């Protein structure tokens, strides 16, 4: 059963072709990694899937529905959440408020003009659960901008999870982290995947993480897919070694 299916996605920026026909399929419940050198089009692919960019050509289906070219807020409502390479959170709001935005949206309560959720509400309970899930319960009332880099990354994932998505796209979740935070984020991703039965697609440069966590790996190079398959197959692929992994891996 496919969760995400892209057919011949092409994305041109004036004369530069960032994606030159990406067709891939991610199964429900799968953890898929997308790897490849810088500029291979990994983040552009995420941006096309989540509606930040419209593809020049091609189609994207999510959970059987055509989502090609839809605005990002609609795509979010279909059940796709994402995090960002550079931490992308609401810096001047508290951790709780950060999580509350997507949770309110899930309950269609963003437009509640004269009241905010009280401590007893389901909305608040959901928020606290998400905050606990990403391990930020001690900082629930801290301003997000004052968190450490690792905690900001966790919050970013929390915002993604808060809407109970069907699929989560993680763009370099361990980027710029110290080894300790790195391990914490990886185990967080594994826990989420098991507990929530989420489909996860991640872009990652930490190859040990990628090979330990993924069900399947897709390798991008210059806007194309040059290899795809189980981690052990990809590791031995000649093209992948030349383009990205190098001989020593």
């Amino acid at each position, binding site marked *: 059963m496919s969760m995400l299916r892209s057919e011949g996605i092409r994305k041109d920026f004036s004369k530069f072709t960032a994606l030159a026909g990406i067709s891939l399929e991610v199964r429900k419940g799968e953890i898929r990694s997308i790897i490849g050198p810088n500029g291979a089009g990994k983040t552009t692919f995420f941006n096309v899937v989540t509606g930040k960019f419209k593809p020049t050509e091609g189609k994207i289906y999510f959970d059987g529905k055509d989502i090609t070219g839809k*605005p*990002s807020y609609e795509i979010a409502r279909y059940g796709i959440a994402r995090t960002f390479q550079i931490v992308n959170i*609401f810096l001047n*709001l508290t951790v709780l408020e950060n999580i509350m935005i997507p949770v309110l*949206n899930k309950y269609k309560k963003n437009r*509640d003009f004269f009241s905010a959720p009280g401590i007893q509400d389901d909305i608040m309970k959901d928020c606290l659960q998400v905050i606990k899930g990403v391990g930020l319960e001690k900082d629930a009332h801290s301003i997000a901008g004052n968190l450490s880099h690792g905690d900001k990354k966790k919050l970013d994932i929390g915002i993604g999870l808060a*809407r109970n998505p069907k699929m989560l796209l993680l763009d370099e979740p361990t980027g710029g982290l110290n080894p300790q935070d790195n391990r914490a984020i990886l185990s967080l991703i594994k826990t989420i995947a098991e507990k929530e039965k989420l489909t996860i697609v991640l872009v990652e440069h930490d190859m040990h993480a990628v090979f330990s966590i993924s069900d399947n790996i897709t390798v991008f190079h210059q806007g194309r897919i040059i290899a795809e398959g189980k981690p052990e197959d990809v590791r031995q692929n000649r093209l992948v070694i030349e383009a990205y992994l190098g001989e020593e891996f």
Partner: protein
Amino acid sequence: MNQKNRSVLFLTIFVIILLCVFPIFLPSFALYLLNEMLIYGLFSYGFYFLFSHAGYLSFGQAAYFALGAYSVALMYKHVSLAIWLPFLTAIIGTAIVAVILGFLSVKLGRLYFAFLTMAFAQMIYAIVFRWRSFTGGDDGIPGVSRGFIDISFMRFNLESPQHFYYFTLVIFVVLLFVLRKLVESSFGLTLRSIRDNAERASFTGVNPQRYVLIAFVISAVYCAISGALHASLTKMAYPELSYWSTSAEPIIMTLIGGVYTFSGPFIGAVVYIFLKTYLMTIIGNWILFLGLILLIMVLFFRSGVMGFIEQKWGVKL
């Protein structure tokens, strides 16, 4: 409720009581000024809601201030001296215009929003200025009534300065209470998430443009009500009400009072009108001093008067 919250509540009630008893002993000119402060305070709250919570800087809220003023001026003159229809026309008419112009203005992001709101306001200025048969052109509409309130067989005439002051005060307090609720609501929080990071908000399922448009219409209605009160207070509606320099006034007031404090816009209006009136009588050319004040604000009190006090006392005011 903790100690600090309680003292803020008491302070609020104290200020309201003070505003209630002022007319008993204030001379008529001072009462007029105080009335003007309430009206410009309301105008500033219109600007503040959109700027401080949604993060959209409008350079054209004067358009709605003027629409409110002209609506009541024309309605009092031609239709009814009871306040209901004139104020309803001001609110609904402005809201309709704001939906259309706001829809066009929010499309292109924050920077263009500032330009577009200013451009639309200047267009409204041109229309008001040119359409002499309807708006009186550059003469404006003199002799605007202050109307009356009729509830069943009772009738309150608002012509006297005291009555009109209390009328303004009631509207001011009610609208401020409503705004406070809006700011604290889920809607207010969603607006602040858009202010902080519109892209992130949209990836969580929020359509930022829709929310900013709603905030824009609410802001415009606040501006229209203050404009309507202004026309009644000064007994005039004139084209300059929609001019871009009028749009700058709530911006300056909010900056002086404190952009991110709830009491800031009103305190800013009080300080601004006080300085304007007294400096004008002492030195005449007060614009120079306004420049100086703004310079000092930007250099030393970037969070405004109330922001400064908040930091000193550690309370939310």
